[in-house]
């Protein structure tokens, strides 16, 4: 019942450290296991903003997958922090794009329920310039 790996390599994300912030355990687990299966190292997952910010402060991160609505509070604080560091982030959301503040309109965005194949491609595209991906 597992999804088959996609892409040319089995581990196209090898060497990437991906932060996952998602308050739904099952979605977080699904995203993390998919990314892990394809070589990424997971930072988190975190169910809330506070823990997400702590992880950004304490761990090196190459890319982030963020749910926008975390039990009523928004992940824009985390997104802003990442934007200032130049770390690419991908929004996973059940919302219409109109609720995104203007400065995040250019962020990649995936709708729930997430298509895991598209998620992998989006992470890969967001990190295209990363040295870890170019070596492989």
């Amino acid at each position: 019942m597992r999804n088959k790996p996609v892409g040319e390599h089995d581990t196209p994300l090898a060497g990437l450290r991906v932060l996952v912030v998602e308050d739904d355990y099952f979605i977080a687990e699904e995203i993390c296991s998919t990314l892990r299966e394809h070589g990424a190292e997971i930072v988190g997952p975190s169910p809330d903003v506070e823990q997400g910010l702590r992880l950004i402060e304490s761990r090196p991160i190459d890319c982030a997958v963020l749910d926008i609505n975390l039990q009523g509070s928004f992940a824009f604080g985390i997104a802003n922090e990442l934007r200032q560091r130049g770390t690419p982030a991908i929004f996973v959301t059940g919302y219409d794009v109109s609720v995104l503040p203007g400065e995040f309109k250019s962020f990649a965005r995936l709708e729930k329920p997430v298509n895991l194949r598209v998620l992998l491609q989006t992470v890969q595209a967001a990190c295209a310039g990363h040295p870890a991906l170019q070596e492989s």
Partner: protein
Amino acid sequence: MLSRLVAELPGGAYRIRASAEAQPESRAMTSADSPDLDLSRRLNSGLRRIASARGIYAVFLATATAAQELANAAGVCAVPADRSHCVIATSGKGSVSTLDPSSSLQQLVTGAAAAGETIVQHRPLMEVELPSGQRFLAETLLTVPVSTDSGYLGLAFFWRDGLTPSAAELTLLPGLAWTTCLALKSQRHENQLQHARIEQRSQIAEIEHRARNLLATIRSIVRRSGQTAESPDEFASHLEARISALARTQGALLIDQQSGPELEDLIRAELTANAVRENQFIITGPSWRLAPRAAETMALTLHELTMNALKFGAFTRPDGRVEVSWTIESSPAPTLRWRWTESNVRSAPASAHRRGFGMELIERVLPYELGAVTRYSIADGGAHCEIDLPINERTAVTIDRIPL
């Protein structure tokens, strides 16, 4: 003059022209010099100005300008129904400002409006000071009480610098005030409608958010059920029962949209849906309402505990019992201590220990999503599950919930 009047009043245009043509002699009466027609023209121009204003302040400004054009009034003053302040609009340069509730102008207008009739007061010798510092004496005041569903008690036109309205102008001004009243009412409705639209949009966004999360949860349940089921039949029956448990919770969430479902109702609904007899369980705990997401996860957990008790535990024997209880503790941190305790179970089979969907809910999902501290054990007496939920906006319903 007539053609201008006709152009300004497209609705009545045809009738006016027809009557003028049918009676040629009356045409002479409608020359530009007729004071009546001139007054009508000024009145109509003012009414149109008020009717086409958009926004409450624009309505006041249009009223002040219309009163100036019609009767040389210096401006208009309005007292809101709650008497919290007084709005004053002046013609000429055109400004709208707000006066303190204690102003003598407001008291005079309030008193006159309370009388219920249009009242003219001459030379009240009332000094009005605008927030801009501008001062003037309002020498004549015409107060028109208006219907309070406009949000205001009364409107008062005022004159200064020795200007006074003619008797004919005075008779027309209440019509202006009532048109203003209608315009204010319609602006109020418009504002309410807009507010309702914004509210509705945020509710739709919240529903959409929940629907998508729910679909994601269902997808995970399907995947987990597939991984743990030992046969296609078991897969189908587990899946169906889990989705039913989720559906029951959704039903409860819809009914108690604002307040959240009662914990006791969730437990009773789950046990009753699985045909557990009333004398086989005891529920004790204070009234407690769960936030939507917490209700879903707790209901799924309850479902798994119930199914386990039906297959391997207390509900396999007529004398088996389950006690579900909870207490609310405020120290060290606000916590809901929830317990599921089975008794009179002779021996628990090894299969009850397997790492199923229920164990994942208890050991992983509840701690991750709700910050719960959980324990699950099986002793000779039966299964025992402890869930300590921290009380916060994730787990409990607060009055001011989300929405966006």
